[in-house]
């Protein structure tokens, strides 16, 4: 009994010390209710927009590549939209579609101009409800370098191009573009559209003395053979050069300095041996270019011609001036899209999938024929690498349901 009493006394003294110690701490102050975060006026260059096409009413999620933290979200309407970040990094432009009763009822299409700091629309411009809707929405919209004119690819299936004046917030024109669609900006006042015959149809906008904008259209020679070796629509830009990769691994470098864009150079991403082994570009966003250094990034895998959109396993980095391959980066996860930040210490973003079950479980399910849909076992991620060395820095998880596109500010 005496022993128990002694222990009880010790415990009581300890508890008292704890309680009295806690009592010495100051109370937490009352906190404000109703606060929302505000982001920088200009989106930092190490942040990345991830378009989540995995839901009917799609979203774009903003992540900080340095920390992996999510910074905000845009709701972008029915079926993953065309989006682009303005050149001054202060706005995000999104072509959105809404039906009054969810998936039915009157349709309304807009260009929403979001403020980069509040992620709320600064302006909503009505546009013709005819935008092209496809698996990937890259190059569905594009702005002239002076940020004045926005082009939208339309497909009903008749093909047209909406030209929107962002200064006045009005539709400037809807132009017929038979056989042509995806948009590639070139110069202050030019937008090129890629045509099925391997050429470009280019629109040049000039401001007249009366303030009106005149639209000049011009065709070009074919720069690739769409039957023999088609190019992939995912292309990368450096100044007035556009880089297109073809099915067979050739870069078609287009000089877009005039309204008559032309093939400037054609060079190979592959050695003959690699071509025989069927290495080719991969995924939906298969090329990226770091403009200050001229480094070109190609997402690569091995497979037959028609596998050109399958996930990539490696990123091969080239000097776009010397055409030399510098580094091969083995990716952490199967990857469908890549992007590179525009700053002097660039990050390489890679959107892909990781498994959420142990390998042995996949193996067991596989050999017993019970694997079913592989995507049941996958979770979307965005991997972040040092774009100069290829070193893996971090993996961002919870990047939506299907992060199909990446946009860097």
């Amino acid at each position, binding site marked *: 009994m005496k022993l128990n009493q002694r222990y009880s006394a010790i415990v009581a003294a300890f508890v008292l010390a704890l309680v009295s110690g806690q009592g010495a701490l100051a109370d937490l102050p009352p906190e404000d209710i109703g606060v929302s975060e505000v982001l920088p006026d200009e989106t930092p260059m190490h942040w990345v927009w991830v378009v989540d096409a995995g839901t009917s009413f799609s979203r774009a999620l903003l992540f900080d590549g340095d920390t992996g933290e999510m910074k905000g979200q845009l709701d972008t309407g029915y079926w993953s939209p065309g989006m682009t970040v303005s050149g001054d990094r202060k706005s995000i432009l999104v072509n959105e579609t809404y039906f009054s009763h969810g998936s039915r009822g009157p349709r309304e299409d807009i260009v929403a101009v979001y403020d980069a700091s509040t992620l709320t629309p600064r302006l909503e411009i009505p546009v013709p409800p005819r935008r092209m809707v496809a698996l990937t929405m890259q190059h569905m919209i594009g702005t002239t370098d002076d940020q004045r004119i926005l082009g939208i690819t339309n*497909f009903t*299936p008749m093909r047209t191009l909406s030209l929107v004046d962002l200064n006045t917030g009005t539709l400037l024109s809807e132009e017929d573009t038979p056989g042509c669609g995806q948009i590639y900006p070139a110069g202050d006042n030019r937008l090129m559209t890629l045509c099925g015959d391997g050429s470009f149809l280019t629109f040049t906008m000039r401001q007249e003395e009366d303030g009106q904008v005149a639209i000049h259209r011009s065709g070009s020679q074919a720069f690739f053979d769409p039957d023999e070796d088609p190019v992939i629509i995912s292309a990368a830009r450096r100044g007035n050069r556009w880089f297109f990769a073809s099915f067979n691994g050739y870069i078609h470098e287009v000089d877009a300095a005039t309204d008559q864009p032309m093939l400037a150079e054609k060079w190979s991403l592959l050695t003959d041996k690699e071509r025989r082994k069927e290495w080719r570009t991969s995924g939906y966003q298969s090329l990226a270019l770091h403009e200050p250094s001229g480094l070109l990034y190609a997402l690569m895998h091995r497979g037959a011609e028609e596998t050109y959109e399958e996930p990539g396993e490696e990123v091969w980095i080239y000097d776009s001036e010397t055409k030399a391959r510098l580094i091969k980066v083995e990716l952490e996860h199967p990857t469908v899209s890549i992007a590179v930040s525009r700053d002097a210490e660039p990050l390489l973003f890679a959107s892909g999938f990781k498994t959420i079950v142990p390998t042995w479980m996949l193996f067991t399910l596989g050999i017993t024929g019970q694997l079913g849909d592989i995507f049941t076992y996958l979770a979307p991620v965005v991997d972040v690498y040092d774009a100069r060395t290829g070193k893996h820095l971090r993996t961002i998880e919870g990047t939506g349901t*299907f992060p199909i596109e990446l946009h860097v500010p």
Partner: protein
Amino acid sequence: MASFDTLLERTTRKLARKTSRRGFLARLGVALTGAAALPLLPVMRQIALASENDPGDPKSCEYWRYCAIDGFLCTCCGGTKTSCPPGTVMSPITWVGTCHNPGDGKDYIISYNDCCGKTYCGRCQCMRDEGDRPIYDPANSNNINWCAGSDADIVYNCSTAIIVGVAD
């Protein structure tokens, strides 16, 4: 939360291209595990409703008509291989594939008309994409949402596989 009952289904089929789904699974398995190709075995399928000259299960992605399809099979969504589920309408214009019928040894032109007006069915995803081309070649690209040409506008539900004729 729509999750997989969404465009994800349609999109992931694109990932599963190659010559067959199993081919893709094996390759993805390699990418994920670093191991040699997993010995994935085919799932046994009941061959139902097959006829001698139109063999195979239209609810299976490996049915011969689906050689260039990219979408949810309408056969699993309340429709058939040639008709749309109730309350949806068929897109009049779409992409085509040329598929070999093992039943009679002939090649057929197959039209993959989309059914439109309700959101993603999400069942029997199938993506084979033989001969798929970039979207500047619309008639041979299955990346495009062909509901754009339908009375129900761009809301995609599932895809059919209709014989147009024998390929020359």
